[in-house]
């Protein structure tokens, strides 16, 4: 369908703008090997041991092109170490003196821009100079190979993960270039041979098309490489979306292993990746096709956007988004529940485990007590409303809130009622207890502090909105959010120590350390607040509202978002460490145990990921959305599902 549209509206030009290169030229280009000496009548190359500027000693020739060569050289100014650099030599062969001077000016201008770029994905420019009609660029020497060489040697296909990992890194470099001030830098020549893979598997862009400036005067000269360049580039347009197309072409080549230089221009849509490599996911094919749209307006609007889309793919799950270093293998195995227990309605409440008993509320109005070891039914207690709040066990009493507006205190052993505390709103907030008092919020906007033994209200704190967030008790105060978007630190005497105002409701419950309070908001942000003052230390924006409450571990903050991802953020800086995409919203709050993090998704799965890397450990499929949060005890995960079961899974 798409293909037909493109053909109908914009047939590819019958003859390429640039004269079709001969087959032998193309094959040479493909191999990225130097042509046999003497094929081109190029003036002599620098011999080994030749000195440039009294500073660089030529060691060997790395590559030779038409009017340029790349040498491996030693920088003699570093006397104590052997510092290696790459030197690119370009021959200014224009006959006209004015043209020669112009080329030189362009060279100096472009080089000066390049020298200011700072990005680990861009080869560093150290120096530039001109001797006679030859100009030189001194570059960082990258130990590694270019993607074209890697591609040529690769037997079979690259894994989808690997290609996505490279593409994410390239997008990152491109967004750096495209955001360059005062004007964006368009690379204009993304293709496998311009992408180096260093010894750590990181990518670096190596050729900024500077060499092309030295080939002016020939008819039809274009910066870019036929096959990888988009249609508009043949009209001399250098918009950032030119790079998006060329990246799409490069990905197409890497995935399908069909060299676009040997095919008619702009014919990608007519040779789907699946023709040669059916293993590539439809999602990734969609991304590549979008990058390769004939009309620039139909492509990704920016490298950022393309990167975000790539990162949301399943195959990006193991790619460490910040560094692109992830190459580890996904270990995914089906696991079998130790037991499961059937309820009469959905289980949205999160279970609690205490002394061998699992307590959980169900939408069937009942609070249940089950034997943690085998799921055996012990007792249940009926309230008059659905239970979405999670029970809390303290001093032999189970506390649970219900949609019938009441907080219940039930004897943990017998299931007999001890006392009730009616409020004027539904109780979705999960209670917490400390110092002989239980704390919980209500839709009547109050945070309650109730004496554990007598059920007497010690104080109420009136919030600005309904309190569905669960209070967290810190060293010096109680922290809670409300639906009006405020987070409160409530001090001695029920007074506010500080308040923090988010832009939307805070249903998420804060996580507290002795330094920071972390909380998510429906305004999509995760906030890191100074625990003593409420100062906003950092914030991180996800792509969807946040209901999930953060969990802490390994120096990271784990939290889910309605954008279907679980995020791992560096607790100190708020920077993204990794994120993991599921097929549904993540409203479940993660739990951390040892090296793993556990959570549920609306896609019906319970996930276990490696906390450090975000790699999948296992996934367990239930028959309904999982909004319940896991409880972890003695190597067992207890979690409810909308399929009306509570599951006990081996951690």
């Amino acid at each position, binding site marked *: 369908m798409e293909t037909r549209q493109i053909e109908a509206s914009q047939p590819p030009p019958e003859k390429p703008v640039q004269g079709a290169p001969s087959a032998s030229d193309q094959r040479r280009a493909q191999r990225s090997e130097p042509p046999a000496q003497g094929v081109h009548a190029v003036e002599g190359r620098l011999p080994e041991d030749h000195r440039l500027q009294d500073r660089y000693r030529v060691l060997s020739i790395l590559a030779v092109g038409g009017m340029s060569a790349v040498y491996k050289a030693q920088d003699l100014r570093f006397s104590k170490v052997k510092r290696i650099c790459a030197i690119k030599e370009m021959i200014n062969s224009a006959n006209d003196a004015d043209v020669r001077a112009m080329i030189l000016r362009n060279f100096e201008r472009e080089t000066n821009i390049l020298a*200011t770029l700072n990005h680990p994905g861009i080869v560093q420019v150290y120096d530039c100079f001109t001797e006679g009609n030859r100009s030189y660029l001194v570059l960082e020497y990258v130990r590694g190979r270019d993607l074209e060489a890697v591609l040529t040697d690769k037997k079979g296909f690259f894994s989808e993960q690997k290609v996505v990992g490279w593409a994410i890194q390239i997008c990152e470099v491109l967004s750096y270039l495209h955001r360059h001030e005062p004007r964006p830098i368009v690379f204009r020549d993304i293709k496998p041979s311009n992408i180096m893979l260093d010894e750590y598997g990181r990518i670096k862009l190596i050729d900024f098309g500077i060499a092309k400036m030295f080939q002016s005067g020939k008819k039809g000269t274009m910066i870019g490489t036929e096959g990888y360049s988009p249609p508009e580039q043949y009209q001399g347009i250098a918009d950032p979306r030119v790079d998006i197309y060329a990246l799409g072409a490069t990905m197409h080549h890497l995935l399908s292993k069909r060299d676009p230089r040997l095919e008619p221009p702009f014919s990608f849509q007519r040779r789907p990746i699946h023709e040669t490599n059916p293993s590539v996911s439809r999602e990734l094919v969609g991304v590549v096709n979008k990058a390769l749209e004939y009309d620039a307006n139909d492509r990704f609007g920016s490298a950022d956007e393309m990167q975000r889309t790539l990162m949301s793919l399943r195959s990006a799950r193991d790619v460490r988004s910040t560094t692109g270093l992830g190459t580890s293998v996904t270990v995914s195995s089906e696991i079998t529940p130790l037991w499961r227990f059937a309820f009469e309605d959905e289980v949205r409440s999160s279970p609690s485990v205490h002394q061998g008993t699992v307590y959980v509320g169900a939408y069937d109005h009942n609070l249940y007590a089950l034997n943690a070891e085998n799921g055996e039914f012990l007792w249940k207690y009926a309230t008059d409303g659905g239970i979405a709040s999670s029970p809390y066990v303290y001093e032999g009493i189970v506390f649970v809130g219900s949609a019938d507006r009441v907080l219940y205190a039930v004897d943990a052993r017998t299931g007999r009622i001890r006392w009730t505390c009616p409020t004027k709103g539904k109780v979705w907030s999960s209670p917490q207890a400390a110092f002989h008092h239980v704390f919980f919020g209500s839709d009547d906007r109050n945070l309650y502090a109730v004496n554990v033994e007598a059920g007497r209200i*010690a104080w109420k704190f009136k919030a600005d909105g309904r309190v569905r967030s669960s209070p967290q008790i810190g060293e010096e105060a109680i922290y809670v959010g409300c639906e009006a978007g405020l987070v409160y630190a409530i001090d*001695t005497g029920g007074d506010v120590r500080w308040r923090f105002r988010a832009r939307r409701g805070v249903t998420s419950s804060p996580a507290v350390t002795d330094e920071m309070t972390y909380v998510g908001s429906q305004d999509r942000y995760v906030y890191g*607040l100074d625990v003593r003052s409420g100062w906003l230390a950092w914030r991180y924006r996800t792509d969807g509202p946040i209901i999930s409450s953060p969990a802490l571990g390994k120096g990271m903050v784990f939290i889910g978002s309605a954008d279907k991802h679980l995020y791992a953020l560096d607790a100190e800086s708020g920077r993204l460490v990794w994120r993991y995409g599921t097929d549904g919203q993540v409203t479940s709050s993660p739990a951390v145990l040892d090296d793993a993090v556990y959570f549920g998704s609306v896609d019906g799965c319970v996930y276990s990921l490696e906390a450090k890397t975000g790699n999948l450990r296992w996934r367990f499929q239930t028959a309904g959305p999982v909004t319940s949060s896991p409880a972890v005890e003695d190597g067992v995960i207890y979690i409810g599902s909308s399929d009306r079961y509570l599951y006990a899974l081996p951690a």
Partner: protein
Amino acid sequence: MGFLRRLIGREGDSAPAPVSSEAGKMLPAPSRFDVGWVTDVGKVRDHNEDAALVIVAAHDGDEGPPSFGLFILADGMGGHRAGEVASSLAARVVAHHITRQSYLPSLLDHERDASQPALTEVLVDAVQAANAAVSKEAPGSGTTLSCALVLGTQAYIAHVGDSRAYVLKEGALEQITQDHSLVDRLVHAGQLTPAEAAVHPQKNVLYRAIGQSSVLEVDTHVRKIHAGEYLLLCSDGLWGLVNEGEIVKLIEGASSLQGACEDLVAAANGAGGSDNVTAILWRSPLG
């Protein structure tokens, strides 16, 4: 409400003990907000391109705003005294931005608001403002910049270049910042050993600094500095000449923060004083 008072009342029992009470070590952590700092031309250069700027606003009492400290260190570069211009300009712009734009308006409010930028973002903006100012007013020059905003016991740190921020805890220095220098990159790339880097002729070459590019990436860190721990900002004139063990010994052996800074500078000068040397030292007070 009494129970919460009891809850908070427990503070008294659990107040952290002085961290170091061994013989020969510095006095227990001060109970007041205190800072020492020194910048010195060294033994070889004829002018000082380092700049240090310290602002402290502290008060007594349990309620009210937290103690505030802003420590800025910049190490300039560029000929014809341009380095001095760059470093002092950068330090002033950062101080101006942080105090004027962010600190003063909201310090006395007890409600924080997500419409205000996060503190780490304020620091990044401040450093970028300094970058714009230096590029405009002192083109061709450059400077490192490391700054720490201390609110209570929390330190918010922003950094470009090869000046350093360290935490000294339990007798060991931990480097918080990463040098944006060529040699550091070469070390990370496995092309140099740290020992080679220390004597490398190009060890002063930076790949990220203020005044070098219109696009500047700024590193940030948020660290709690526990009672008794030290925060040290210093230029390469100190860390390049005095080893970490010696720095720890001098700090822990001094009788005051100011004295410690003077001892550090003396040690750098004793080791040749080949560069300007600057140290800013703060110790997290008790309770």
